[in-house]
């Protein structure tokens, strides 16, 4: 049939012609800027102009204690945020998967943090975290946990934790929804067979549900790691990386260097580090995806 429709090569040309507009757009707006970023990282580019400076940006960056601190901080921040998203997301999915009244409403109600523009959602968190008038400080003061107003975003440690919580809030709904979809994809007869054999609800979760959704859990861990690593707006709005750099992650630092000070060269060197790390994540993710797909097609 296909041969009658068009020969293979003609098909190829049509396909390429159809894809060309999108491909060219992506090359111009994403691929070229990526390469240009690499080039700029070897220059001292600023609004005034640019000269090649070799590896200077990289040498300065890697020898600075501050930068090394930022890298470590980024991974600590990521680790807590991703773990919490996965744990809370899994618990949420189990709860919303229970066959009880109202679950379809809860499934919709879980999504707003995911859909709403982050910048707008963070206004709510700014109010919640307000040290004098916010509800969290209020509950703390009334229960005696806090002995006075406490600005959650004003101190190093509490700001670090507060930004993680806000990030978890943004990321959890998506994880929940994906886990839920995976749980519903588990064949029902597995559960019925286990039930007939007398397996408890607990056993069924650990011996059937969990192994069955493991591929999705792994995929989601990687995807959330990538998105968390990229998380910019949450920290920018809540703390702008402060107080005293305590919430400055790689992305925030890149942005500050590049567009806060218009030191494009230095910013670009940081962006290259971000790029390399992202490519590692993406490589892991795609390799994994290819393996999972292969496994599925073999079954």
């Amino acid at each position, binding site marked *: 049939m296909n041969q009658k429709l068009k020969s293979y090569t003609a*098909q190829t040309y*049509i*396909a390429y012609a*159809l*894809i060309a507009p*999108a491909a060219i*757009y*992506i090359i111009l*707006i*994403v691929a*070229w*800027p*990526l390469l*240009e*970023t690499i080039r*700029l990282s070897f220059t001292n580019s600023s609004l005034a102009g640019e000269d090649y400076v070799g590896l200077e940006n990289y040498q300065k960056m890697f020898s600075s204690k501050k930068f090394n601190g930022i890298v470590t901080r980024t991974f600590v921040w990521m680790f807590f945020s991703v773990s919490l998203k996965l744990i809370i997301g899994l618990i949420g999915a189990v*709860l919303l998967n*229970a*066959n*009880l009244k109202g679950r379809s409403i809860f499934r*919709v109600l*879980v*999504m*707003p*943090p995911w*859909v709403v*523009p982050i*910048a*707008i959602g963070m206004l*709510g968190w700014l*109010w*919640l975290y307000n040290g004098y*008038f916010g*509800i969290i*400080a*209020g*509950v703390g003061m*009334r229960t005696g946990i806090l002995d006075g107003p406490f600005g959650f975003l004003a101190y190093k440690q509490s700001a670090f934790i507060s930004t993680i919580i806000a990030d978890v*809030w943004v990321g*959890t*709904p998506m994880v929940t*929804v*994906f886990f839920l979809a995976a749980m519903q*994809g588990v064949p029902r007869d597995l559960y019925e067979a286990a039930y007939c054999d007398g397996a408890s609800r607990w056993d069924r979760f650990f011996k059937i549900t969990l192994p069955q959704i493991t591929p*999705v859990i792994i995929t989601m861990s990687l*995807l959330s790691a*990538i998105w968390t690593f*990229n998380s*910019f*707006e949450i920290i920018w709005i809540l703390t702008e990386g402060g107080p005293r750099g305590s919430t400055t992650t790689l992305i925030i630092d*890149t942005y500050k260097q590049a567009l806060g000070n218009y030191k*494009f060269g230095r910013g670009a060197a940081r*962006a290259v580090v*971000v790029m390399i790390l*992202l*490519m590692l*994540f993406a490589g892991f993710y*795609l390799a994994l*995806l290819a393996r*999972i797909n292969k496994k599925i097609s073999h079954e």
Partner: protein
Amino acid sequence: MNKYNPFEKILIYFGIFVFMTFILLPFIEMFYASLRPLDHLFRSPYQFYSDDLSFWAYQEMWNTVPMLGRYIFNSFFLASCVAILTLIFVIPAAYAYARFKFPAKNTSLYILLAINMFSGAVILIPLYKLLRTLGLLNSYQSMIIPGVAFLIPTAIWLLKSYFEKIPIDLEEAAFVDGASRVQILRHIIAPLSTPGLVVVGIYAFIGAYAQQFLFAITFNQKKEYMPIPTGLYEFIGYQSVKWNEMMAAALVGMLPVLLLFVFLQKYIVEGLTAGAVKN
């Protein structure tokens, strides 16, 4: 086997309650704050109860930030432009991926996925310089152009799966009957793929609406082009923040995407999870 005893039921509902509190507390608190008079909000420690709730802030906010209406319009305008442009680029590409075999098909699909993993922050510098050279900084275009690029990959994947659901037999039958490609496109593909196009268009709209902040703070300084996510921060510029009005404006600003999403959540979630969750 899906029966729960009362104790289990209570436990699950309690769990759901705690979980939902975490998810919804910011929204509830925003809404509550928007209804309370400012002097009630400015009491420390926090007062849980106000007796004179009103929608006053929803009227007053337009006076406090006179450009608010313009910001909301800008957000709509920007998101609509981005969504329409995304569709224009994505429809032919998705159709090609769904219907044709060609070299590098799978590789390029995976490259698209990989693009999704780069945040805009990595390429901001060259984009900033490019837009500056083209004289496009501080314009609608400066926010539309990068916005489209980051929506194309997912939109292609989503729309491709919709096109794949249209049985190829229909097209082949029409072809045998002597229909031209254009006719096939107009009379078979277009009507059958309308639901898919609507979903992808709305996905792009929501995505564009959500991602405005980064591009807006980086590429645009002009108030008249500001979208609502950045415009809202004007409430902070005053001597004391008018929290009730800011929360009211924030809720109004997020309402359009929330409504769209509630109506179409089933389709969007189905489409997005289909890629990651194979049955």
